[in-house]
């Protein structure tokens, strides 16, 4: 009895020590290049919230960028005459520095062929994470490989901003663990196309019985409306959710934890 108690105390101390040991913070690039599409009002609040969650937890440090310059693994080159002291180039980052991307871009984003190759390779070959929100499914329609990496495409929001019920399909998945089996949201609910349940693991879907399927833009007649999924892309981990249209949505602790836990999972911090 005494031994068991001592063991328990020992375990507790070990666990405490492990919990207090500072793990080196991971590096997350919050990338929201909106120069070519409609800038959702929520984007700045979303990236600031993602930054705060990482900093307060100590899990990761965030770089916020609304340009795409550092979407490269080949270093960043600078126009001449940009500095005061010539040759001074410190704190220069590119994809090699980052462990995961939180992506909240929209529509067609200007990337060179090299940049596109590096972005895919960042996930597929380097095994890094890619967590994407809401309008991310509208991005890069002209780039098939991106659709394959993400796992699905935006197909309108037939109901505009509406109330809906999200049903959790996989309560064991780290980004779903904190959620009740069903919860209501008010969001701009996206219809997803070009996905296959053979390739993505849908961890939450919209309850089709609560949606008006007679709306003209409803294309999915079988009522399959994924709300969140994960997939592997090569060696990397990818997560997407349709949620997060309005700035206020990012104040909802349920939504915050979906993305925060998804980032931790994509970083390999949870299984």
């Amino acid at each position, binding site marked *: 009895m005494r031994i068991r108690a001592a063991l328990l105390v020992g375990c507790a101390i070990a666990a405490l020590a492990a919990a207090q040991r500072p793990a080196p913070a991971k590096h997350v690039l919050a990338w929201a290049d909106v120069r070519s599409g409609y800038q959702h*009002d929520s984007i700045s609040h979303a990236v600031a919230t993602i930054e705060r969650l990482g900093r307060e937890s100590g899990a990761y440090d965030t770089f916020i960028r609304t340009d795409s310059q550092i979407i490269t693994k080949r270093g960043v080159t600078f126009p001449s005459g*940009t500095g005061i002291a010539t040759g001074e180039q410190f704190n220069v980052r590119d994809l090699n520095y980052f462990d995961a991307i939180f992506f909240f871009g929209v529509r067609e984003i200007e990337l060179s062929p090299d940049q596109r190759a590096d972005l895919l390779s960042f996930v597929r070959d380097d095994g890094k994470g890619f967590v994407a929100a809401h309008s991310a499914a509208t991005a890069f329609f002209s780039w098939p490989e991106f659709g394959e990496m993400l796992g699905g495409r935006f197909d309108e929001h037939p109901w505009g901003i509406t109330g809906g019920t999200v049903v959790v399909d996989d309560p064991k998945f780290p980004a779903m663990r904190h959620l009740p089996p069903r919860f209501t949201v008010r969001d701009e609910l996206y219809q997803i196309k070009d996905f296959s349940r053979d390739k993505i693991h849908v961890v939450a879907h919209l309850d089709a019985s609560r949606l008006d399927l007679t709306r003209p833009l409803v294309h999915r007649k079988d009522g399959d409306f994924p709300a969140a999924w994960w997939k592997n892309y090569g060696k990397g981990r990818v997560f997407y959710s349709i949620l997060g249209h309005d700035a206020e949505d990012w104040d909802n602790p349920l939504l915050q934890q979906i993305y925060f836990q998804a980032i931790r999972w994509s970083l390999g911090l949870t299984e």
Partner: protein
Amino acid sequence: MRRVGRLTGTIILLFGLASSLLVALQPPPEGQPGRGGRGGGRGAAVRQRKAVLAWADTRNGIAQHDSVSHALAVIERLGYESGIYDTFIRTDSSVISKHPKTTDGKPASGGPSLANVDAIFFLGHREIQLEAEQKADLLAFVKEDGKGFVAGHTATTAFQSWPEFGELLGARYDGHPWNTVHGTVINEDPSFPATRHLPPSFDITEEFYQASEYSRDRIRVLLRLDVSKLPPNPELHRTDGDFPLAWAKSYGRGRVFYSAFGHAPAAWDNPDVYRMYFEALRWALGLADGDATPRPMK
């Protein structure tokens, strides 16, 4: 240690924010939520709160401070939680225009522009590529439209090749003689909104940027480094003991504020620092009054 430091920082941040809001928070207009949201997403036709563009184009890559993203996020949070302003974070410069364009030249859709924001919070550095028309729009934004311009730390290193920008900001960067060091700051104007919460003198650890090409005939210095408390340094270029760390000025019809504070990410968790910027933004937005009349060193 890092975790504990962060937790402490968070607690300080929350506590500081709460206490600053007690002073700063104005009751929201009738029928408007007190916090959160932009009011535009759910049917409100007119933007009620002010809009701030937090602009930090760091694509010139050199000296891309690690604090930039945290600073932008803190500025966003202060506006959001107080309900005083909404923030657009941008690290590109395509919105520095009254008529922003997309990357393929079409008119931009949604998002900020110099025609629809009320102030800029600027954390850029060195030479940032802007078209001549963008430069003209930026100056007119402050000078003619009477909008606000609040700038931090690296801002004095920006646009060295553009004389009018130096005139707008009020000074230029001249190194940081002691790098990051513990120093004593003299509060020259405890009645100004951005420095009202600060004692007559206080200590802080910071990379103190030395300002040059300024004149106390054109800027009102609010904070100054007490150089007498620091060891002699060959890079200290003035002999009169003047070393401004924060100032306010007008530029045409607009209000301009700069402070050298904010080098390290943790600086933005220091209530003295973030509250200074928050109050400076309120002043620059015309929500608080302060006397920016230039005056000699005291």
